């Protein structure tokens, strides 16, 4: 049973991350391979505050993480959005690699390559969530809230504005709207989602290390959006659930653990190519 709860909790976390990536890549159309970096920032911040000498309760720690991740995304998208899209590709790679360098080398802050063990489980209003089941419920709650936010945004004028921007930025500017502000807002929002996912991840797994937040992880996130489908809520949900079942599938096929990670990444790469060639709208999404 615990195994199922783990799967659901992780899937929930990755759906929130998927929404974040979908917002940036699917809706605004920015190529981002730095989502895992922001995810990591959220995780490390929550871990830090939950384990500080004067620890914070989960929700305040999460709030700080959200704030930091939002700011981070704003800071990195702002200069890049003023010039052509390809420059953001470079920026995105740079952020991801830089973040991995920080996570791995800043031992005093992040525990370095060995990571941060023993993160206490979340506590809500003084009541600690001890069991896997309860933590899973927390993650599901996060999932529901994130989906609700996403849905509200997309049906609001903001969502319509983003869709128009994706089609024709100049026409949107000609209609009197501030394109840059809309894009930065979307990026900020994506940052917020990633921060929430990071906090949930840290407290659910109780151990985090840089390998969960590297370029391979960002590629996995991209694959989830590509496979599930861009720009739709359904796509953001299906992608993570399917791809998280992949490791289980590999074990069934008896791929030895030594090359399991390599095999997984290989499959993600193949999926990316295949979907871009043959089904750019993913399973349940709209054309990228």
């Amino acid at each position, binding site marked *: 049973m615990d195994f199922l709860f783990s799967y659901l909790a992780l899937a929930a976390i990755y759906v929130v991350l998927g929404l974040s990536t979908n917002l940036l890549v699917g809706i605004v159309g920015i190529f981002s391979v730095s989502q895992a970096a922001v995810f990591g920032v959220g995780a490390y911040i929550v871990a830090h505050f939950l384990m500080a000498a004067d620890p914070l309760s989960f929700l305040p720690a999460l709030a700080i993480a959200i704030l930091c991740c939002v700011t981070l995304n704003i800071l990195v998208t702002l200069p890049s959005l003023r010039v052509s899209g390809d420059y953001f590709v470079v920026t995105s790679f740079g952020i991801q690699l830089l973040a991995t360098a920080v996570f791995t080398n800043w031992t005093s802050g992040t525990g370095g390559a060995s990571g941060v063990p023993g993160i206490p489980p979340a506590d809500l209003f003084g009541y600690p969530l001890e069991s896997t089941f309860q933590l899973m419920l927390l993650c599901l709650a996060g999932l529901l809230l994130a989906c609700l936010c996403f849905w509200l*945004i997309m049906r609001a*004028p*903001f969502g319509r*504005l983003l869709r128009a921007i994706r089609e024709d930025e100049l026409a949107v*500017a*000609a209609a009197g*709207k501030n394109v840059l502000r809309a894009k930065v807002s979307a990026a*900020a929002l994506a940052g917020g989602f990633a921060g929430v996912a990071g906090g949930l991840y840290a407290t659910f797994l109780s151990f985090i290390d840089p390998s969960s937040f590297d370029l391979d992880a960002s590629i996995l996130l991209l694959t989830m959006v590509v496979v599930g489908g861009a720009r739709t809520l359904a796509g953001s949900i299906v992608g993570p659930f399917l791809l998280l079942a992949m490791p289980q599938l590999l074990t069934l096929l008896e791929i030895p653990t030594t090359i399991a990670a390599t095999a997984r990444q290989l499959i993600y790469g193949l999926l990316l190519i295949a979907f871009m060639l043959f089904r750019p709208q993913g399973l349940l999404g709209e054309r990228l």
Partner: protein
Amino acid sequence: MTAYLQAVGLDHSFGGLHALRECGFDIEQGRITCLVGPNGAGKTTIFDAITGFLRPDEGHVTFRGRSLDGLRPQAIVHAGIARTFQNLRLFTELSALDNVLVALPQQFAEEPLGAIFRPLHAARSQSQRRADALRTLEHVGLADRARETVRNLSYGEQKLLTVARVLATGAELLLLDEPASGLSAGALDAVMALLRRLQTEGKTLLVVEHNTRVVQQIADEVLFLHQGHLMARGSPQQIIADPALAEIYFGGAI
């Protein structure tokens, strides 16, 4: 008295192409002015320069006495000038109504926080705006096509939609880039009637147009542009009757 819209000394080159040469003109409020000239004369370049899509190498544009130099496109719209594009640039995957809605100014929940934290207010405000947008579509005669995606609209309807979009911005000076080109006779009449109606409602129009019949029927004044420079101005009759200009327009090399 300062001119309503005034351009002075506009000069711009695209690499080797000298698109605007010390171009200057002014527009009177409440009139329909047509901008004519052979291809490559610089008409769209002027539009780009006025509306902030281009920063001319030299020259100034003022509107109601206020300088527009260096302002970005959205700021120019807020100042009261809106433009259409020769290649329409509609949002093809959105409905006609949504295309207009995008252009309505000052909407609630056009940013994420309002959408998330005050959803009920957002929904209420949206239904009001929908009504406004529908009225704009009625104004151009597209009310019954409101829910259609742009793909399903005829070319004539799409052109009307571009006008609806600029109307929605609330701008008082409308720059229309070939609003009548490529239209059938019936659609053409509808567009001309619309433009005259807009004038009676107090809008000022600057229209780039190739069709001499359209120019004759709607223009109060015509500006003839050639090789990036204002060559002549006058009433439609004067400009069209001038043989030298006709030669440039139809026969001469650029």
